[in-house]
């Protein structure tokens, strides 16, 4: 069987502009595999995740390429079918736990909605499942949390609830969009461990969007480095940390803070490297225009 998720030659642009924001992005993920998408702010990492799940902002159009989920081309599906397929097989762990839960609803329906509405479970079964999930994410008093409103929970608790909710319907694909960025360092570690634990137990395919190479080394098997909406390097995590192939990846890795030498590692990426990467992106654009 081929990969569970394949993204082929995906390009997107701002509505009404010729400029592309995603430039012929291609990658694939097998079942049970975690792919890290790394890059600096604005490189388009989150946008790829959103494109897969169909939640791109309305100002961004997909101009070419295909997204194959379990062998089905999402871009060619009817919106209603696509919504059902995504709802049944994919889930999102969002970036900001503060806005990712509806402030005026209790936790229980926010976890069980998908089970009841999309998968047709009974309310009682969905409730049992929700309690089980909250146990799985190590929440001590699940009954009480289910009856709480989001503002009664701490940030770490909310992120646990969101992870539980993401894994509720046994998704085959999870997109984690910087799931630990909004949390403080001690909580980050627990949450990462939790995500990896659940991902391994359910052997979920996962797209892990982050700017933190340290996180990638702990969670992912492979990674793609993005610059300006273009993938400049695809490699396995082991290969990457042994020696990145692309000059930009090397610079990115060198820019990661090190405890042993904090001063030296906080230097900005070399100007020449950025220019070379930018030139590469522009060259790809020229080629794309002539080809298309």
């Amino acid at each position: 069987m081929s990969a569970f998720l394949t993204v082929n030659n995906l390009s997107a642009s701002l509505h009404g502009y010729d400029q592309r924001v995603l430039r012929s992005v291609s990658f694939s993920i097998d079942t049970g595999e975690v792919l890290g998408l790394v890059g600096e702010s604005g490189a388009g990492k989150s946008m790829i995740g959103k494109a897969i799940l169909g939640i791109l902002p309305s100002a961004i159009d997909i101009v070419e390429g295909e997204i194959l989920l379990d062998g089905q081309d999402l871009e060619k599906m009817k919106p209603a079918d696509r919504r059902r397929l995504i709802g049944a097989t994919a889930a999102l762990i969002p970036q900001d736990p503060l806005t990712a839960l509806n402030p005026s609803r209790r936790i229980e329906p926010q976890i069980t909605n998908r089970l009841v509405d999309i998968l047709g479970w009974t309310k009682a079964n969905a409730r049992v499942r929700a309690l089980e999930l909250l146990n799985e994410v190590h929440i001590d008093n699940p009954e009480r949390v289910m009856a709480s409103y989001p503002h009664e929970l701490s940030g770490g608790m909310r992120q646990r609830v969101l992870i539980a909710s993401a894994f509720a319907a046994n998704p085959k694909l999870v997109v984690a969009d910087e799931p630990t960025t909004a949390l403080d360092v001690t909580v980050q570690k627990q949450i990462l461990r939790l995500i990896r634990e659940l991902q391994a137990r359910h052997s979920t395919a996962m797209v892990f969007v982050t700017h933190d190479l340290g996180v990638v080394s702990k969670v992912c098997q492979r990674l793609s480095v993005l610059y300006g909406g273009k993938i400049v390097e695809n490699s396995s995590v082991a290969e990457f940390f042994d020696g990145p192939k692309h000059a930009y990846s090397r610079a990115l890795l060198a820019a990661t803070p090190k405890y042993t030498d904090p001063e030296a590692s906080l230097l900005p990426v070399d100007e020449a490297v950025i220019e070379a990467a930018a030139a590469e992106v522009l060259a790809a654009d020229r080629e794309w225009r002539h080809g298309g």
Partner: protein
Amino acid sequence: MLDGRGSVKRKLGARLWLSGTWLGLMALLALLAPWVSPHDPLAQDLFAGRLPPFWVAGADPAYLLGTDSLGRDVLTRILHGARIAFSVALIAGLATAFVGSLLGLLAGYMRGWVDVVISRLVEIWMAFPPVLFAILLIAVLGTGLTSIIIAIVVIDWTRFCRVVRAEAMNQSAMDYVASAVVAGRPRRDILWREILPNVLPTIVALLTLEMGIAIIVEAILSFVNLSISSDAPTWGGMIAEGRTSIHQAWWVLAFPLIVLFLTVLSFSQIGEGLKDRFDPVLR
């Protein structure tokens, strides 16, 4: 888990207390006006014209707040006026809130051509002077309570539409909406079950404000004699009549004006108070 704030019950606050009491009292009196008011609101007694309120020399204790130039009891007319004012506030307020919020929600959530059509309509609508608009409408529809309510809805729905649209757009950009989309929930469901509950506090605050505004609009229309029949006891009509005899009988103007002022103020204050109390984030 529950934090400190969650378990502490907040006090009602003077604002909510005062405005709530005043509105409750007025609503009760309006409801019971035919039974509690001392006189017939329409009965004229030319021999008892322009009697002052009870504490002024020459007053008749049967007319607590005095009489107007036709000898009608001011207190009775204020109580019966409250019936009209509160009916207008309630019916026109709710209808305006419904129409405006519905269009605002649709525009803010659906975006695209729906938003373009509704937003342009709002802009065109708002460029038209509201009072002139109301007078024109009444001229077409004829006077009467129903016409006034229709006029208020037609003029004021834009107030809700603009604010609710902005708030719906705000909420639509939140991650919880994205999560609901990924979960495959239908759009209609997301609008009513995810977004509406978060826009509701704004709608409630606007609604109470609108109730006050509806009372003012009714008073303005009564003032220019476009409300209900000219001898019907409306606050605006009483103020208009009182204006002509301000130097001889100030009480004909002053009492309905004070009641109108306090009622409108209370509506706006109760809205703010409720918003503070029920907003899930501020709570």
